[in-house]
């Protein structure tokens, strides 16, 4: 050892050799680490781009009925009363009756009547569609394909995510389907979740942080339990919801005790309660962190002035912890907004055209619609699934930005 290290030339040569090798290895691995981060970023971009790709693009539209056979003049030029007679003469009596029931034909606007004529009398349908990037790069391919298969079809650009999509209800025809029912369902769902989980979660956090500190054994058990619950897969919560809220408490969750008839337990209330259980551990942990961050000097000062423990918590600890608690709550709610599996188990309806009327309605939610449309074979349903994903992602991102802005503002104020 000493002899070889004592030899200066040996040391110089060896270390130089080694150093080069080591540095080569180091830069190789540095590139590798950089690459793996890059892959994560690229994956996110591809994910978003592939969704945008499906949500817009060229479509071929073809009329099922011959326009000229239905009316000599173009339908756009017909008057309101002419449109009504056109509808009444071409649709089945039953269909006219249901339309009349929704809103009398004579009272409908011209635009409304025109859309009924287009959709139900002439029945113009999307017969082929092309994703966005292909539409931009090789529109010719689509034109050839359409010219061969559907010579009468006209090609135009369609944004599947459009105002109509947001305001219409579910339909079996992709271009007429919308997610209004699902958006309302999702909002009602997170409202119930919020009303149940927020008070319970914040109370539990207060108990664990402010009261239970002395009762170490109980608080340790609860803490471990919350940690475990946070790791339980969401589908298990769905099973729990099915067994408890849908089945055991069905008289309550179906609204039977309140005189609401004709429901089983598969209501939006059951789903909301299930979701509350799911987000509770997240909410408690977040609230605990916010409460823990309140400096102890505040509590001591309050006690020193003779305040009781609850007065201290209510007037000093909670106001200071509130921004943190709210941020944590928003994050928990975003989780509830995107969860799908528990809703499937609890029994969200996949095909429903009526808006939810209250907490005892059967319901659907945005993620359920995405799932339902994704699993259908036609390409057009994939496109509206992509449009629904954009709506969902937009909602989640705006929730999260609210949380971040809130956090930053409260930090500035301090």
């Amino acid at each position: 050892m000493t002899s070889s290290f004592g030899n200066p030339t040996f040391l110089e040569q060896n270390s130089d050799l080694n150093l080069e090798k080591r540095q080569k290895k180091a830069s190789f691995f540095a590139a590798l680490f950089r690459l793996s981060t890059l892959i994560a970023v690229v994956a996110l971009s591809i994910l978003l781009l592939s969704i945008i790709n499906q949500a817009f693009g060229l479509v071929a539209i073809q009329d099922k009925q011959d326009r000229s056979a239905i009316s000599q003049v173009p339908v756009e030029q017909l008057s309101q009363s002419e449109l009504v007679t056109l509808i009444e003469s071409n649709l089945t009596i039953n269909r006219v009756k249901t339309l009349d029931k929704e809103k009398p034909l004579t009272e409908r606007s011209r635009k409304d009547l025109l859309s009924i004529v287009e959709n139900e009398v002439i029945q113009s349908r999307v017969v082929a569609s092309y994703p966005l990037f292909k539409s931009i790069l090789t529109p010719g391919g689509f034109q050839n394909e359409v010219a061969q298969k559907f010579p009468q079809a006209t090609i135009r650009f369609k944004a599947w995510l459009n105002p109509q999509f947001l305001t219409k209800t579910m339909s079996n025809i992709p271009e007429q389907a919308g997610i209004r029912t699902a958006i309302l369902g999702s909002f009602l769902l997170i409202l119930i979740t919020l009303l149940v989980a927020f008070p319970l979660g914040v109370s539990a956090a207060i108990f664990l942080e402010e009261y239970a500190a002395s009762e170490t054994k109980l608080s340790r058990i609860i803490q471990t339990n919350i940690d475990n619950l946070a790791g339980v897969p969401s589908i298990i919560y769905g099973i729990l919801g099915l067994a408890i809220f849908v089945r055991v408490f069905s008289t309550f969750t179906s609204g039977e005790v309140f005189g609401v008839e004709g429901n089983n337990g598969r209501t939006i209330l059951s789903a909301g309660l299930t979701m509350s259980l799911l987000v509770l551990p997240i909410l408690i942990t977040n609230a605990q962190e916010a409460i823990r961050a309140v400096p102890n000097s505040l509590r001591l000062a309050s006690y020193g002035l003779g305040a009781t423990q609850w007065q201290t918590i209510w007037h000093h600890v909670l106001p200071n912890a509130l921004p943190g608690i709210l941020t944590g709550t928003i994050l928990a709610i975003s989780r509830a907004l995107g969860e799908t599996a528990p809703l499937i188990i609890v029994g969200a309806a996949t095909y429903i055209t009526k808006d939810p009327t209250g907490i005892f309605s059967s319901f659907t939610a945005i993620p359920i619609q995405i799932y339902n449309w994704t699993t259908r074979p036609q390409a057009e349903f994939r496109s509206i699934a992509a449009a629904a994903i954009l709506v969902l992602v937009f909602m989640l991102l705006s929730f999260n930005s609210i949380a971040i802005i809130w956090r930053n503002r409260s930090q500035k104020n301090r």
Partner: protein
Amino acid sequence: MITNPNVKMTIFKKKSRWNEKLIRFFLTFAGIFSIFTTVAIVYELGKESLLFFGLPGIDLVDFLTGTTWQPVIGKFGVLPLLLSTIITSFFGMLVSIPLGLGAAIFLSEYATQKTRKVLKPILEILAGIPTVVYGYFALTFMTPVLRAIFGQGNVQIYNMLSAGLVMGIMILPLISSMSEDALHAVPQSLRDAAFGLGATRLEVTLQIVLPAALSGVIAAILLGISRAVGETMIVAVAAGSGPNFTFNPLKGAETMTGYIARISGGDLAYDTPDYNSIFAIGFLLFIITLILNMISRKISRKYREVYE
């Protein structure tokens, strides 16, 4: 005044603090509420599982060792579902462990403060995307890519590989953020000492920082596995429906979670073998994930290197 005992007495009488007691009672209830949830999960899963195993022709050994799951002919062997869960999770971890760890090391040891500020929110967005969106991505993007690579005939439209790979992307941010926290917690003095001895950044990272943070990294990986096993929507959309006992990841096979989602998708009638079976499978799933989570937490607590 203060020495007058009567005054003191009246003050205390005025403040009988029943409301504080009431509040405390409610808070205690809220604290204990989470325990009810756990009890309810175990009770319901256990009760219905017992009913399931009480049905004629079904017993625990057949359930755990049978290789066919065909309720129609009374065959309830969970292995096809379990195998498919293991295969999809395996591919998920194959993607997420190296990439997640690489990203964590890059962010913690290599990236400048500025880069971190840009990259961390991106990973957080990736973590916040609902799993059904990943399912959509697996079916409409990953599967066509795989079919282009391996050939249309070799890859089924619904296949475990596609679901597994996308699951990896989903779990990546979990592993990277937890590992990064662990790496970040290693004190700077250790790094400085190693740099002072002439170590390269890589040597510092792999020989000093990573061993010191190993418990946190392993905990992250275990939690990732647990997440993969319990993941439902990606496999429900992309891995195929119908139990299939196969080792070929290019084929479709239903996982445990996928089965539960499919069976309860319709209007499931109570007290049928189908209804009870989702509880038995759910119980198995619950136990697997619970054990993984508990080991993960134990490791991160017990073997955490404590500095000062």
